[in-house]
């Protein structure tokens, strides 16, 4: 039987368009494109309401402002493609900030060890999440909720509930230099982390396995995939990037309140879900998450500019999670029918 559409032995010419199609599907391209369109529309609306949104420096500021959440959201995206969730991300960001500040203690010589310590501790917490989930099979939702509560408690106990440590001179300055007078280094750090995350997602076996396991865990096990190893690595990265998010928070705000990032888990989840990575797993990606983070922060700034307060931001956040989830669900149902 020979049909015209049968796959022939791959020749470079024939294989090229097919390869493009394969990666497009993996990124669920139309959804990712849609979210960037939303960002553009939002910016146009914002620009119409306030000319501030037309100034590159202000936009650079928004990216800087988004850095802690954005960096952490990259790791959480990995976990959610896998079909998991990391509710301990807010607590991990807090811990990263507090540890880094305490270890730095005002001495520029301590900057490097302080950053290393924060990363190590946060990565260890992520690894612990991953190991417990992979080995015990406890629901990631419950397990990371438990981790979150425990971590907030530990952070409070260690700090005694007050801000500790002093930022070393030069630490904040490095991150707040504006490249070309527009984009602060901290904003650049976010974009670099996102680019690295997107690369990992696209080209590595780890990235591919996230999608495979997320789309069908039973099939992944049957196909002999290293499911446990992948789960542990994903949560470790989530923890590590949470720690980096904490350091970014410290660089942005300069203070390390012991609950510095409490509630940030909601911002992170809102951004990831908005970006098209669903709680069901197997779809979405870093590209969408970056757009989701930026939309969220443009919206926050817009709320401020209009003159509404912080509490209105909460309403925006909640609405974003609900509306985005509903829309993606519909898109998905439409796509599968």
């Amino acid at each position: 039987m020979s049909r015209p559409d049968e796959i022939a032995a791959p020749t470079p010419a024939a294989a090229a368009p097919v390869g493009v199609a394969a990666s497009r599907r993996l990124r669920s391209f139309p959804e990712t494109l849609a979210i960037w369109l939303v960002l553009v529309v939002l910016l146009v609306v914002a620009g119409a309401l306030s000319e501030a949104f037309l100034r590159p420096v202000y936009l650079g500021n928004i990216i800087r402002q988004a850095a802690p959440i954005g960096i952490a959201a990259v790791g959480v995206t990995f976990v959610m493609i896998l079909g998991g969730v990391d509710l301990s991300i807010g607590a991990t960001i807090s811990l990263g900030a507090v540890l880094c500040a305490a270890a730095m203690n005002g001495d520029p010589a301590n900057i490097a060890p302080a950053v290393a310590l924060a990363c190590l501790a946060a990565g260890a917490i992520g690894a612990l999440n991953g190991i417990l989930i992979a080995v015990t099979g406890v629901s990631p939702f419950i397990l990371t909720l438990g981790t979150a509560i425990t971590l907030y408690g530990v952070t409070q106990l260690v700090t005694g509930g007050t801000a500790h440590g002093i930022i070393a001179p030069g630490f904040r300055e490095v991150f707040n230099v504006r490249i070309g007078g527009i984009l602060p280094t901290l904003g650049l750090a976010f974009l670099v982390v996102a680019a690295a995350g997107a690369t990992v997602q696209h080209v590595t076996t780890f990235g591919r396995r996230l999608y495979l396991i997320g789309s069908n865990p039973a099939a992944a096990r049957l196909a002999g995939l290293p499911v446990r190893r992948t789960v542990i690595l994903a949560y470790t990265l989530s923890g590590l990037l949470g720690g980096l998010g904490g350091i970014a928070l410290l660089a942005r705000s300069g203070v390390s309140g012991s609950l510095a990032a409490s509630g940030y888990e909601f911002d992170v989840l809102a951004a990831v879900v908005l970006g098209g990575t669903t709680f069901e797993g197997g779809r979405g990606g870093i590209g969408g998450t970056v757009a989701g983070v930026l939309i969220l922060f443009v919206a926050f700034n817009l709320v401020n500019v209009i003159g509404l307060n912080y509490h209105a931001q909460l309403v925006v956040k909640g609405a974003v999670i609900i509306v985005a989830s509903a829309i993606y669900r519909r898109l998905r149902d439409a796509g599968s029918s």
Partner: protein
Amino acid sequence: MALLETAGLSKSFGGVPVLAGLDFAAAAGEVHALVGANGAGKSTFLNIVSGSIAPTAGSIRLGGEVVRFANPQQAQRAGVSIVHQEFALAPLLDVATNIFLGREPRNRLGLVDRARMRRDAAALLARHGFRLDPGALVAGLSVAEQQLVEIARALSFEARVLILDEPTAALSPPEQQRLFAVIDRLKAAGVAILYVSHRLDEVFRIADRVTILRNGVRVDTRPTAGLDHAGLVRLMLGETAGPTASVARCAAAGPVRLAATYRAGEATSEIVLRAGEIVGLAGFVGAGRTHLARALAGHARPHEIEMMVDGVPVAPRSPAAAMRQGLVYLTEDRKRDGLFVPLGVLVNTTAGALDRVARLGVISRAAERRLGGGMLARLRLAAPGLGAPIDHLSGGNQQKAVFARALLAEPKVLICDEPTRGVDVGAKAQIHDLLLALAEGGLAVLVVSSEFGELLALADRILVMRDRAVIRTFRRGEVDEEMLFRAASGDPAVCAGRP
């Protein structure tokens, strides 16, 4: 006089008739067996009589009156209840609540009257001689006890007709005997029992009459007393072509690839697969074929199986570990644990072989296309492109992708569970050719199939399973469909010669 009667009952799905003009009658106090090969129309008939689907034509009479059921609830209220092979119980609720689920007795405040529910349940269970505590949690019951809950629930509708669909599939032999005692009592109480089972020895044990279906048509209804096992199988299968013309193939079986000892309950089975050989695993629902197949591929509980691959003892504890030993399993249920939806064909194919196309964890797309695309081309996959979502392909092409994934694992032993299920005729022939070619190339192949014809066409040897044990082994050429059917359905004349 007949209690349940159908006249000219017909059903077509999309213009294809699956039941054609069925006349059927069952009397009160009768155990009436319904038998037929796969696709004979048994399930369709049961679903119509129990109200799940509407007939295209024909009528049903219950106690002389014409009835028409819009849904299973109406059938239950009229006195026709079915106990499916798959139970529909709420495990975390107690027995009484499960029996009266959805129609709990209420007190004056409109709240559930739990005391009365317990009393009613206890009375019902006592009346039928079921030894069950109405307050016991269903999750803590054995499979046989859960089945009694299902039967009690069915009877609580004052059932006059009770349909049992493969009721013994999940029961141990002593539990089967207890079920037969229950059936005898119900029969004495005047209930008409429709008994559907592949186990023909049971049919002879408990049924008064048997109706034989073949291709949607009733072949005959006969008292079981005047029939023997072989005669019944012949009625079910019709004129068979005798030993299937086997594919001409020099079955030069090589050295033993896999030798396994499989234990389930009391029984022990020996399975030997040689290089270059296709071995079939035959049996009916509940015989334990899939369980055995999966046990060979790293799903076994400790002490369930002992294996040697190429003479070396192995004890894989996961599918990944089994694959490292060269034991690769192809699922019978692609949707459940075969396909990665909605990812693309190529991504599905190379899922388990990424390390072969990656360096330092970085995938080479070109190498991936060469490896996966090459294998898919070899299997003659038809798809709009390698990136096409796997769920957009036909069943046959989905199966080819799953096959390609298995072959990329470089198996020594390929265990295929229902390799042609949900696959069109063309793809089926291609998959058969592929299996033959793989065996030719030195692979040991185990094929699990419900289609005896498929096994007869492919296999050098056929193992017949029943009650989780291999009860008989046949060689190519010494067995036909009828003989296989008799062995799998428990004909003592055939099964006496143990493997």
